[in-house]
């Protein structure tokens, strides 16, 4: 093992000194993750806002409704005229506009507040945004009604308006009107004894119980990435592995063409030890680079690893798989140019169909089926399984077993071909 470690350390030192190789192994994968992560996330990890217009309306109810809407972090609201808003939405500068049309004040009351109407202008193709906006509008509107109920002054105004309606109402006997007037008077006396602050704090126990719309945070149990970084960082790990495999495959060819392989063969070590040294260097580099990139993603972009143990297994298995692929690539030709050309071509094709360029989740079904042939697919699947797919160990067995199998077969075939080419 002393000789194997000596060989591995030498190769790692050479990689460290090779700025071009380091670029492909570390810098390029990181750039890929940052570039595509930024594109898919819309410019950062902050909440993405929906730009809408609110049609100018100076009424107190409209302003109260606007104030409720503005409480939402998701909406970026600009007051403007109806014509300007229509034009902006039509040209795609704004997602939608909202127009608050107040009902006749004499008809509206605390008992029947839904006479107000709200019109939303939005492109019919933006169904997702329309549904989302509908929810936000409902939330704001009912929050406004709830405030009316819990504000004693507002409530008393509404009661007085109801008493006036009752006096002019037909079909009520004088006795019934007297009973109702007594009840309203007692209620008014009660409300006058309640100050606004107390009322607000006692909101939950309001006997008139307006629509109590509230949201409770519930952990998302559906399977899916929590951010674009959770898609791009597994891809960046894949590119790092590709960079390692290509770099070390090239180093084997260079050993052969530059004569150092002959000197290694003359040393009192077996051929298997030489190849094991190369493999170990490649394996350690793969593990180091993947761990570094993943740690960077976790710290800077909050990529959440669901299972550190499974992630470790995924990285180790992927690294082993790429050691086997490195051996196979190194025997594709006898010159550096041949190996670099054919090696990168094969790796890129595998990467293309295996989720290295287009994420697996966005692939059309026929490519998704084709991707089963690519070792890259199983790498990405294992990484994603440990990050956001919520894999249990049993789910991981298949991708890990495939990765180890590819690693063994690649190393075996590569070694045999190398030995045959020497004799």
């Amino acid at each position, binding site marked *: 093992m002393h000789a194997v470690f000596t060989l591995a350390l030498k190769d790692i030192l050479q990689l460290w000194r090779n700025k071009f190789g380091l670029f492909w192994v570390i810098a390029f994968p990181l750039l890929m993750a940052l570039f595509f992560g930024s594109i898919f996330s819309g410019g950062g990890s902050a909440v993405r806002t929906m730009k809408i217009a609110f049609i100018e309306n100076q009424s107190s109810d409209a302003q109260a409704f606007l104030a409720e809407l503005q409480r939402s972090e998701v909406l970026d609201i600009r007051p403007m005229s109806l014509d300007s808003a229509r034009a902006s939405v039509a040209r795609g500068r704004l997602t939608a506009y909202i127009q608050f049309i107040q009902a006749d004040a004499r008809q509206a009351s605390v008992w029947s507040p839904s006479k107000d109407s709200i019109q939303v202008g939005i492109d019919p193709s933006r169904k997702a945004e329309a549904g989302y906006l509908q929810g936000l509008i409902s939330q704001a509107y009912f929050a406004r009604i709830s405030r009316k109920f819990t504000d004693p002054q507002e409530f008393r105004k509404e009661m007085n308006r109801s008493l006036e309606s009752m006096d002019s109402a037909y079909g009520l006997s004088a006795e019934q009107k007297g009973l109702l007037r007594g009840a309203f008077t007692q209620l008014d006396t009660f409300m006058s004894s309640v100050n606004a602050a107390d009322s607000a704090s006692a909101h939950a126990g309001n006997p008139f119980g307006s629509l109590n719309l509230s949201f409770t945070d519930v952990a998302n149990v559906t399977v899916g990435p929590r951010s674009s970084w959770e898609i791009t960082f597994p891809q960046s790990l894949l590119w790092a592995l590709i960079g390692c495999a290509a770099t070390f495959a090239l180093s084997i060819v260079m050993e052969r063409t*530059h*004569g*150092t392989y002959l*000197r290694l063969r*003359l*040393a*009192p070590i077996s051929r298997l030890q030489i190849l094991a040294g190369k493999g170990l260097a490649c394996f350690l580099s793969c593990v180091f680079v993947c761990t570094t990139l993943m740690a960077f993603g976790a710290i800077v972009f909050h990529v959440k690893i669901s299972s550190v143990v499974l992630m470790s297994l995924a990285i180790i298995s992927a690294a082993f798989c790429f050691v086997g692929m490195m051996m196979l690539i190194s025997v594709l030709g006898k010159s550096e140019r041949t190996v670099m050309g054919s090696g990168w071509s094969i790796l890129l094709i595998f990467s293309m169909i295996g989720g290295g360029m287009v994420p697996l989740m966005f692939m059309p079904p026929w490519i998704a089926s084709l991707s089963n042939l690519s070792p890259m697919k199983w790498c990405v699947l294992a990484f994603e399984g440990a990050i956001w797919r919520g894999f249990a160990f049993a789910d991981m067995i298949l991708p890990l077993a495939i990765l180890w199998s590819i690693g063994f077969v690649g190393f075996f075939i590569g070694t045999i071909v190398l030995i045959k080419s020497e*004799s």
Partner: protein
Amino acid sequence: MLTVKNLSKRFGSLTAVDSVSFRVQPGEVFGLLGPNGAGKSTTINMIVGVLVPDGGAVEINSGGSPVDPGVRRNIGNAPQSLAIYGDLTAEENLRFFGRLYGLTGARLRERVDWSLELAALTDRKGDRVDVFSGGMQRRLNLACALVHDPSLVLLDEPTAGVDPQSRNMIFEKIELMKSEGRAVVYTTHYMEEAQRLCDRVAIIDHGRILDLDSVDALIDRHGGISNITIELDPDAAIPTDLPGRIEDHFLRLESDRPLEQIAQISARGLVFRSLHVERPDLERVFLNLTGRRLRD
């Protein structure tokens, strides 16, 4: 030290090495002299165990096979192509190869320092090899073959493409190895090098050893006659019965015993203004053996 018996190797229809046999003793520099493609490097690769011979055998230190790692520890090889890492420093190269041969700790440090001194690279030990001149790289290539203190050293064209200063330095190191009792197998197509360094030389062509002996013996056997040119005093009378031919006042003759011939002419009382003897060399030996020049 090294015994090669009827070694043969074929690559398809090409016979690269054909029944090559020789022995090398400790403290001897043995030369394999032949043109490019004669089979020298193939022979070396079979001696060190990298190539499996189709026939024959190699014995090192009384019966050891070069395939045995224990035997390989006693072999140092400086391949024809530079077998060093350009992106490592001279010291890192030596430490790496020393470790591969099992050296560690103080012994490794001692041998690395010795090798750096041998290659005259002590003051450049921390520099990356890819900034070295061709001669410095060749010297390091040689030092890497010696870092583990082998008793059998195989040098395959060790002076290819180096400057005269580095070439002389390499010659001095080979003479040092010989004085230390190491057996050296030296392949070259430069007959001057073989003539200067080698105790015995095997002339090899098309994979076969044509003859093998000391340089003098080879020249005596295959070199032919020496060319002698004597410039006589133009004012003195020149006898007409002198051997050879007179051109102006130059006497030109050929002889297989040049010193005796010159002594006989001088005994006749002639005054020599100058004397030039062109002795046959290994180039002539090769020409006479193969009908071709070494560098054809």
